[in-house]
């Protein structure tokens, strides 16, 4: 019998072939035994510039390019390695010291082994991605060495050897190979970095230099800073004493969670912490209409806002009304945490099932039944930890502070109130107090009340503009670094001197219409530099009008898939802060070459309609074009020009035509049920040189010209959406706004009914629009706007999506009452519009310059879905960053005022939008800010410093406040009430943000 078994030992080929066996669990639950063969080769380069051999044998890629060596020929030396060294970190070195590797001050010339990279991918995807990013950066010189494919460095797993041991051996083998492979004479040291004691010994036994991260960092410069950046999560494991009291319950096992999720007794969702009560969170799960409430630390069980968690519904006895109290971490003592008492009842599976039904019933019931289903976290599917900006709690630095360099544990209090304090160990406690500090969370074990993290870097002193702005950008994950050189290389070589080619035989003119003769103008906010859009209108012989919307042709300058395009994809949108704009595209394009500035020829993408005087659309067409804008107006200037009876030139006439058409379009839209929503928007005009910065804060005025532009932009977006959807039925980039579930409005509706006798009809957007119109209180004209602001918050947010991922009826944009919608009109500041431009160019068969770059991504649904996800995320963050920036600005302005004239707040109108047991939330339209009003912030007639008492009438949303013993002098506020408040800036006293000022709102005695 001839043996059929492949015997690697006796096979003559055996030294170049090996195999790897593992079990793969497929999504459908199937198990596959997978055997992959590994073909070993000896031409994988070491990529050191010192190596005389590898460049000659290294294989070329598909284009025939031999990759250039990465590792420096003169690597940096340290005290221990004066001749220079290459680093070979193992997996746990990356796990514990990722921030170190990213530090610009150290860690150059690193060999990332394939073994390590694969292990890292299995253990932590974010860290894997960060490592990949490092290998791509040229300056750090990280080289991925495919040691598992190289004959000399591949090792076979021994019988009975664990995978970890085998991988450790592979790391040692690779390091040894490097030190033997490189020319002996000038060979730098090859140093294995590992945080595993056993591996350290193995490496030393194998004759390889090995260091633990800590020991290695100790011989670098800047020791203290670098040491602080090592993760606390794992390295402490060995020397940590007996685990103390276990504060938190254990998570369920992975398989138990999966079984529970499948059976529908456990649920998965994103954990959100209430901004008013840090001990209360909610999780929206697919099974129920309304979110489940999670009360108390024990129930939230180490979940941090943003984590994807698995929850279990608690028995009905433990259901609670959502808290009507403001609880802030800073005001609470650690000792009196209102932890929830939990009696662990044994619940059978049947009862657990029945419980799910109960939840549905309770969610369906009107809100009078105040007791709401609660749940507890039993597992975490995915941590969504990021870097957090905060301040070091000076109270936590302890008395050791004076002893200098000693390592101590301090609390980092994040800016985001929903994030718990983070314990970090640092040697620089003294320097860090009073600074904005970036830190990350490493772990949160059962025996620590707060998560453990480590220092990443310091942004600078608190309250300084630079530090605060950077903090804000970091918190909202805005990419604010200057554009790298690779991006700038993609700009036109002519720079600012670029002009539309004069000769119409130039390739730039192919497929482009000459619309220079049209009387085009742009209308934008004052001081706008990135002009995306321009308009024109002219009468046609048949009595109709031709209207054109001309959008900057950004896609002409940003070619698909180059560095600039990738950067723009990642940024997603331009972020507008009060005093800063973080551009999506380099300045040259945004404010010059693309911007439709007046009196200069520019490339545009034009949408033109024939419109009847009654604003009915007869036809639409699209073309790339060249335009010459006659003027750039601000809204006010345009309005004045239109209103000026003496002006009768063609441009003014065309603007008047546009205005009257836009009003008719708007009417039609409102007829169809479009919502007129409001958000608390203020604008800040910083260019004015007035002494009082507060006067810069302007609420957005709404002129007729605003809505003129808006209407035509909506029209253009809708028209383009239809066009691209017909060309890309599966992959058109559209924007939708889902109808909000009626349950979202339940609370607001109840409040309106009780307080004002209004009722919202949420059956359709039309019904809602009509009922919102009826919410008018003649005595309080702002109330309607207030209700609109609050209604907006009840809605889902609009999102970009790929047409193939939703059924056609789901395309609807609820707020605009449009069947289909997209973004086309702001390609300079939104990436979605740029993509839509490309899709439209393809849809109309544009064949001119640039059409030779085919973007395969336009037809790739999964890629587009990824892009959409990122765009939605960036869009939301940009909005929040903008708002936070205004808040900061208002605070600064108030502070400036407070400094010049102490104790003089500014008295303005405020409206109560939420009432709690121990305070209220007041919205100040003048500054577009809202703030908490605590009991102490009520000005009471003749009151002293006595303790405040309060009474909360939950049914009437009314709060009564008085000083102890003086109930007769009580003040009371109720929901929607108009108040006189004094807004001022004052330094915070709490530990949370020592030295940080906050906007204080005081309710004045009426």
């Amino acid at each position, binding site marked *: 019998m001839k*043996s059929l078994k492949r015997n690697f030992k006796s096979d003559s080929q055996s030294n170049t072939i090996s195999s790897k066996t593992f079990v793969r669990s497929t999504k459908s639950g199937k198990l596959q035994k997978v055997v992959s063969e590994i073909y070993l080769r000896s031409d994988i380069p070491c990529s050191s510039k010192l190596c005389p051999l590898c460049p000659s044998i290294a294989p070329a890629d598909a284009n025939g390019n031999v990759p250039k060596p990465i590792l420096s020929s003169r690597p940096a030396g340290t005290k221990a390695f004066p001749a220079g060294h290459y680093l070979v970190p193992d997996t746990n070195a990356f796990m514990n010291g990722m921030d170190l590797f990213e530090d610009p001050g150290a860690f150059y010339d690193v060999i990332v082994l394939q073994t390590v990279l694969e292990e890292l991918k299995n253990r932590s995807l974010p860290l894997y991605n960060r490592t990949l990013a490092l290998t791509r950066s040229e300056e750090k010189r990280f080289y991925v060495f495919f040691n598992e494919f190289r004959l000399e460095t591949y090792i076979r797993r021994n019988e009975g050897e664990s995978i970890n041991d085998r991988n450790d051996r592979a790391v040692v083998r690779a390091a040894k190979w490097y030190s033997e492979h490189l020319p002996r004479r000038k060979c730098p040291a090859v140093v294995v970095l590992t945080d595993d004691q056993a591996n350290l010994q193995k490496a030393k036994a194998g004759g390889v230099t090995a260091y633990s991260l800590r020991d290695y960092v100790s011989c670098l410069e800047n020791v203290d800073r670098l040491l602080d950046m090592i993760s606390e999560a794992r390295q402490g494991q060995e020397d940590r004493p007996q685990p103390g009291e276990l504060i938190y319950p254990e998570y369920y096992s992975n398989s*138990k969670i*999966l*079984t529970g999720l499948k059976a529908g007794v456990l649920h998965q969702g994103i954990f959100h912490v209430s901004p008013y009560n840090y001990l209360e969170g909610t999780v929206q799960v697919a099974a129920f209409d309304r979110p489940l409430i999670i009360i108390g630390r024990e129930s939230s069980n180490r979940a941090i806002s943003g984590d994807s968690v698995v929850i279990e519904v608690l028995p009905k006895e433990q259901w609670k009304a959502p808290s009507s109290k403001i609880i802030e971490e800073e005001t609470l003592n650690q000792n009196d945490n209102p932890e929830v008492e939990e009696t662990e009842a044994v619940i059978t*599976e049947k009862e657990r099932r029945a419980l799910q039904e109960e939840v549905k019933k309770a969610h369906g019931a009107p809100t009078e039944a105040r007791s709401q289903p609660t749940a507890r976290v039993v597992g975490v599917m995915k941590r969504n930890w990021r870097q957090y900006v905060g301040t070091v709690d000076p109270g936590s630095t302890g008395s050791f502070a004076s002893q200098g360099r000693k390592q101590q544990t301090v609390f980092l209090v994040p800016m985001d109130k929903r994030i718990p304090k983070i314990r970090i160990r640092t040697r620089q406690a003294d320097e860090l107090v009073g600074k904005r500090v970036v830190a990350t969370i490493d772990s949160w074990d059962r025996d620590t009340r707060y998560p453990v993290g480590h220092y990443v870097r310091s942004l600078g002193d608190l309250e300084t503009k630079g530090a605060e702005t950077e903090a804000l950008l970091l918190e909202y994950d805005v990419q604010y670094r200057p554009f790298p050189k690779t991006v700038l290389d993609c700009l036109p070589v002519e720079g600012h001197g670029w002009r539309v080619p004069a000769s119409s035989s130039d390739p730039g003119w192919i497929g482009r219409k000459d619309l220079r003769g049209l009387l085009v103008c742009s209308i934008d906010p004052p001081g706008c530099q990135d002009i995306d859009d321009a308009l024109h209108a002219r009468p046609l012989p048949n009595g109709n009008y031709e209207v054109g919307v001309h959008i900057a042709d950004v896609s002409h300058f940003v070619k698909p898939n180059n560095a600039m395009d990738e950067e723009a994809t990642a940024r997603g949108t331009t972020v507008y802060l009060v005093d800063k704009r973080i551009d999506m595209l380099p300045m040259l394009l945004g404010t010059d070459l693309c911007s439709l500035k007046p009196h200069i020829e520019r490339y545009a993408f034009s949408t033109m309609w024939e419109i009847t005087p009654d604003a009915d659309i007869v036809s639409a067409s699209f073309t790339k074009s060249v335009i010459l804008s006659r003027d750039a107006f601000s809204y006010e200037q345009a309005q004045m020009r239109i209103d000026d009876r003496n002006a009768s030139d063609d441009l003014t006439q065309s603007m008047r035509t546009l205005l009257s058409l836009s009003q008719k379009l708007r009417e039609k839209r409102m007829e169809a049920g479009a919502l007129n929503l409001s958000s608390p928007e203020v604008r800040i005009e910083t260019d004015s040189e007035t002494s009082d910065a507060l006067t810069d804060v302007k609420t957005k005025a709404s002129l007729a010209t605003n809505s003129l532009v808006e209407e035509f932009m909506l029209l253009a977006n809708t028209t383009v959406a239809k066009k691209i959807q017909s060309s890309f039925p599966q992959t058109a980039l559209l924007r939708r706004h889902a109808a909000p579930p009626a349950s979202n409005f339940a609370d607001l509706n109840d409040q309106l009914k009780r307080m004002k006798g209004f009722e919202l009809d949420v059956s359709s957007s039309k019904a809602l629009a009509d009922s919102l119109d009826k919410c008018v209180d003649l005595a309080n004209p702002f109330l309607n706007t207030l209700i609109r602001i609050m209604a907006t918050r009840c809605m889902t947010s609009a999102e970009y999506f790929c047409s193939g991922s939703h059924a056609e009826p789901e395309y609807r944009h609820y707020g605009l009452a449009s069947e289909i919608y997209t973004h086309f009109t702001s390609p300079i500041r939104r990436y979605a519009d740029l993509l839509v431009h490309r899709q439209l160019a393809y849809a109309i068969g544009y064949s001119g310059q640039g059409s030779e770059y085919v973007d395969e991504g336009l037809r790739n649904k999964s890629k587009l879905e990824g892009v959409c996800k990122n765009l939605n995320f960036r869009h939301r963050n940009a909005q929040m960053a903008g708002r936070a920036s205004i808040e900061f600005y208002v605070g600064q302005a108030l502070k400036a005022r407070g400094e010049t004239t102490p104790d003089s707040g500014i008295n303005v109108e405020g409206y109560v939008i939420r009432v709690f047991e121990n305070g209220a939330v007041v919205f100040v339209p003048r500054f577009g800010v809202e703030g908490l009003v605590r009991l102490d912030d009520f000005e009471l007639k003749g009151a002293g410093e006595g303790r405040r008492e309060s009474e909360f009438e939950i049914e009437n949303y009314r709060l009564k406040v008085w000083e102890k013993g003086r109930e007769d002098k009580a003040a009371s506020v109720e929901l929607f009430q108009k108040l006189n408040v004094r807004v001022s800036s004052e330094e915070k006293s709490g530990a949370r943000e020592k030295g940080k000022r906050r906007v204080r709102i005081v309710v004045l005695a009426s």
Partner: protein
Amino acid sequence: MMPATSTATTLSPAELSYLHTSLTQTPPLRPDLRSSTEFRPLRAETDLLPTCNGSAHVSLTDGSEALVGIKAEVHRTAGANVTKRLDEEMREKMSLDEPSSTISAAAAAAGLDSNRKPRGHPDWISLNVDISTLRDDDALLIFLSEMLREPLLTTSTTTTTTTTTTTATRSSSLADMLVINSNWHWHLHIDILLLSPFTASGTSYPLPLLSLATHLALRSARLPKLKSQGEEDPLVDDDWESSLFLFPPPPTSARKPESSASGKAGPNEQHSIPPREAGRLLTMPPITLLVMTVNSNIIFDPSHSELAVADAVLAVSVSFSSDTTTHHHHHHHAQTPTLLAVRTIETPARDTMRGVPAAGEVVEGDLVPGVWRPRVGGVKREVLKRVVRAVLGASADDSGVAREVFDGLEAFLRS
């Protein structure tokens, strides 16, 4: 009665008669000079198909060769009620805590409460035999596969007598071993392939070869290690090295030298494989042996030519088990063979041509010595008894043919 080994033999009546006469001698005189219980040399290798959970390749000296591959999949058990089962488990846990439990701990430990333990279902094992020269619906194929499947599904009941009690222990069938929990089970696909050409002349009846190959494949089969527990949906360790044998190797004949060394450490030293279920029998997959009788002679592993003159052909299926409770203190864990089934197979001698006696010798209907007469089959009860005894072993000294075969196969697994 199974169909004969198909087509007729090419031997002449004279040759048949000669063979028959030789085999009726005491001891029988076999053409290849084997003793009556001696098997032809066999070669085997296991675990050769990389993507299978278990596999074996076996060949006999006559050139017949078989390959068996086993794949295991996780399947949801039909008709399982998630809620009910989870509930039951919960109650079970609670009731075990109560001292007033009606189930005695001893009984529970002995695994007697069989309603509680989920049992396997025969459908969980699919078996497919493929012989290249035969059509898929060939009767022989169907009968062969049933012949191989049947012993895998049957269970034997043995009676163990200890000093105090007599307990009837039902050994678990292969299907029972596939239970993961009340909602999930492993499904085994056993694919059996006869590699050698199957011709009427020259190759022997393939049943024993296929049975031995299946036995070896099953014993080399490994299932991924489960990380989930109890009623949870199965979740497995992705490291193949950590997978577990479906049939844990018996401790004495451990495959690694170091674990046999540890066996000497003393009576307290437990063997490396945790006892699966105390009190239950550790079973081994069955084997089916082919035995023929000639007059009162019993001949094991008949060759093709020997079969042609068999009075009766028997397929004897035997399973093996070692009792984990009673034999802990023995260094040698005896694999006790248990009879599962005896099937008769139609003898090919039935279809042979009758010999024509020399002139003058005609005695119609009577046996003429030296003149071949087709056999009609049938075996005496007494002979049958002896067959069973020879297979299972009559006494402590005589371990029986089944044990010998088992030990012989063991050597291939160890190599």
